[in-house]
């Protein structure tokens, strides 16, 4: 069972700490809001992902189980994908 990162863009207030802890999967857009790489989290990054989830002060970042990679691909793109 794979895990994916899920961002609640309404809750997120751009603290950016998640990106400090998981730069492999989380980039920040021009306003400091995270852009999260889609898809299941590689095993080697799971602990870092948990730590990133823990550090978010507004609980905007969550780990979610997905049974198939197909499910992971269906995650909506968070935070405007960095454009504009």
């Amino acid at each position, binding site marked *: 069972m794979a895990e994916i990162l899920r961002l609640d*863009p*309404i*809750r997120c*207030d751009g*603290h*950016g*700490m998640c990106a*400090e*802890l998981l730069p492999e999967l989380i980039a920040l857009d021009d*306003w400091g*809001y995270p852009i999260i790489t889609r898809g299941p989290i590689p095993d080697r990054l799971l602990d870092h992902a948990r730590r990133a989830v823990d*550090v978010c*002060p*507004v*609980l905007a970042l969550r780990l979610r189980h997905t049974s198939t990679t197909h499910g992971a691909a269906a995650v*909506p*793109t*968070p*935070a*405007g*994908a960095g*454009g*504009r």
Partner: protein
Amino acid sequence: MSTQILWFATRGAGVVSLLLFTAVVGLGVMASVRWQARHWPRFLTAEVHRSIALLSVVFLALHVVTAVIDPFTSLGWISALVPFASSYRPLWLGLGVVSLDLLLAVVATSLLRARIGPRAWRAIHWTAYASWPIALAHGIGTGSDASAPWMLGVDAACLGIVATAVAWRLLAGRRSADLPAVVASLGRGTFEKPGALR
């Protein structure tokens, strides 16, 4: 003799708790004003805040438990957990208990944060600002070393740190969290980040 050891433990753990909680308040403020430096990323502030908070709970537990089991004090668990229930120095001891109870709420909600949600967690977390000065008053009012010069120095230093932190927070809040800024950030949340809607 063992009674004395318990008493020393109570006193020592009380002072250490004050020092640690002072650090926790300072780090909490640093996290909330989003301070960072070149070699000190923000996640570090948040994580050290949490680690020292848990450590200080250990010392606080030691402070309370040794005071209660010390046969000389005959306090009992009720007076350690119910404010002003103690017959011994009810006011000063009661303040310590109030501070302890507030802190237990802060710790419990922090541990259950994912379940109760960030709003309730935040609301309860604010009481930490009340818990700290009440604890200081408890120490000044009933601490065995309260009038020792070194203890007065510790009190003054801790008070200075927390007062500075609170002032910092108030000033930072005025700049970044006044109404227009809040409105602006709400607007940003809905208008500048349309990705979720696309």
